[in-house]
């Protein structure tokens, strides 16, 4: 069950942040969006996840239209994301960050929680076991009692991805996961994303500023500039496109 986006458009005031964006993300696809700063990449994610309502256009998850739904409903429909600036529940433990993500499958009522019924204890034990198993997959189990905010940066990124996956999404949106990482951490991240893509049956859409990450991971990329798609296709071809080179050279940072 993939993601299909047609003619997605959003303006803020006079500025068109995203203009006629299209995307065909297959079942277990892995695609990327690149582009200079301020090109509208994060806005695309915000539109997909319902943070902003689109002015125009359709977003379909499988057969189901999700554009216009509130964020929480879209999340429950099966779209999870991470954030450019990490948004963990900093004061909660690493474990609770994951267990919280299982809230939709808690399996007990408020009164059962208040009075600690047998069902509550059973379900809670199940949630705990699932969370620990999940943490173990991401190598974070020995950190479970620490508060999420105290983890080193790279592990915070990993925890955020783990948390997004804990909701059981069909589509995972990663917003600049390699931002602020050193080359060794980037290498680990690439392996992590490949592992996630292999182990979980889902589609991944990736925003990234660092071209090597996209080159290595994505089957197909789109290049956004000033809200418009200026090129798309296989990463190796796209980076040779003169339009793309110009868009990137327009700012200080040339493509690596």
């Amino acid at each position, binding site marked *: 069950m993939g993601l299909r986006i047609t003619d997605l458009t959003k303006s*803020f005031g006079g500025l068109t942040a995203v203009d006629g964006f299209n995307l065909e993300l297959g079942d277990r696809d892995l695609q990327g969006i690149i582009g200079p700063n301020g090109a509208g990449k*994060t806005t695309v*994610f*915000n539109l997909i996840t319902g*943070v*902003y309502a689109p002015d125009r256009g359709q977003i379909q998850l499988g057969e189901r239209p999700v554009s216009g739904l509130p964020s929480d409903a879209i999340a429950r429909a099966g779209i999870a994301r991470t*954030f450019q600036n990490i948004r963990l529940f900093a004061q909660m433990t690493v474990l609770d960050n994951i267990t919280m993500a299982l809230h939709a499958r808690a399996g007990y009522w408020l009164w059962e929680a208040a009075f600690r019924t047998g069902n509550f204890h059973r379900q809670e034990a199940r949630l705990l076991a699932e969370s620990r198993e999940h943490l173990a997959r991401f190598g974070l189990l020995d950190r479970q009692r620490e508060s999420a905010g105290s983890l080193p940066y790279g592990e915070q990124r990993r925890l955020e991805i783990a948390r997004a996956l804990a909701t059981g999404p069909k589509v995972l949106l990663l917003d600049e996961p390699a931002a602020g990482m050193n080359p060794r951490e980037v290498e680990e991240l690439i392996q992590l994303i490949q592992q996630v893509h292999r182990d979980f049956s889902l589609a991944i859409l990736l925003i990234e500023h660092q071209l090597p990450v996209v080159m290595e991971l994505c089957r197909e990329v789109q290049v956004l500039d000033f809200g418009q798609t200026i090129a798309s296709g296989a990463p190796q071809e796209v980076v040779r496109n003169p339009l793309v080179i110009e868009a990137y050279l327009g700012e200080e940072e040339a493509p690596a």
Partner: protein
Amino acid sequence: MDTIIQQLFNAAQLGAVYALIALGYSMVYGIIRLINFAHGDIFMLGGFIGLLLTTRFGWMPFYLLLPLAMLLTALVGVAIERVAYRRLRNAQRMSVVITTLGVGIFLENLVRLTVGPETRQIPARLPSAPVVWLQQHLGAFVTWDKLLIILISLALMAILWLVVNRTLIGTAMRAVADNKDAVPLMGVNLNLVIAVTFAIGSALAAAGGIFYGQAYSIDPYMGIDLGWKAFIAAVIGGIGSIEGAVLGSFLLAGVEVITVAYLSSNLKNGIAFGLLILLLLVWPWGIMGKPTLKKV
């Protein structure tokens, strides 16, 4: 006809007092995004300082007494900012708000314990004769002190407008309101700007307190009720905007005077708060306030 004009003047007088308080709320909020819950009590304190000056220094003419009381109250306002709020400027916002609550209660109890809980009236220092011209031409009974209170208040607001829009410190204040973090980079003394804002707000509130004490009465707890209503007025007009605070104040006073005249005086607070809640539900950020874009 004549009663309507009289009611109009009543509303204008009440609205003027609300506006003098509301301006302080609005300016402080505009500049450091802080709801200063103690501001209503600064207004009360201003009234009591006025009372003290009138009773102790009976010889002092009103045109000296009013500025002196405003100055003293301004000093208190600045001192409170310095002692209690400045250290919390970068703390969690709610900590500051709670501190202002504490300061407010402190002031209420301080005045209650030193002066007593009784309701008092500031001895009239403005002429209380009716304005003959209005009586003859419109048949309305309006006293000089009422008219003077309205006029002085409007003059103070005009001065404030000039200060904010036509002076260097006013420009700095508007700059801080626009972007607090960028301003120190440009060589503006942030502490000074904030202190001046508190001084001006407190001075205006003191004028309001004295006028209120002359027109009605003062007691140590009046800051709660009136402070809240002035705050509502500021929100109605769009908190952070000077014109909005004045507009909202006269609007609220009008609604209140009509409620008292034609419904029941018991309902006036309920209606004021009802109005506030209704407004906030329709415009969660206030009428003039801009809805902030979620940053993700």
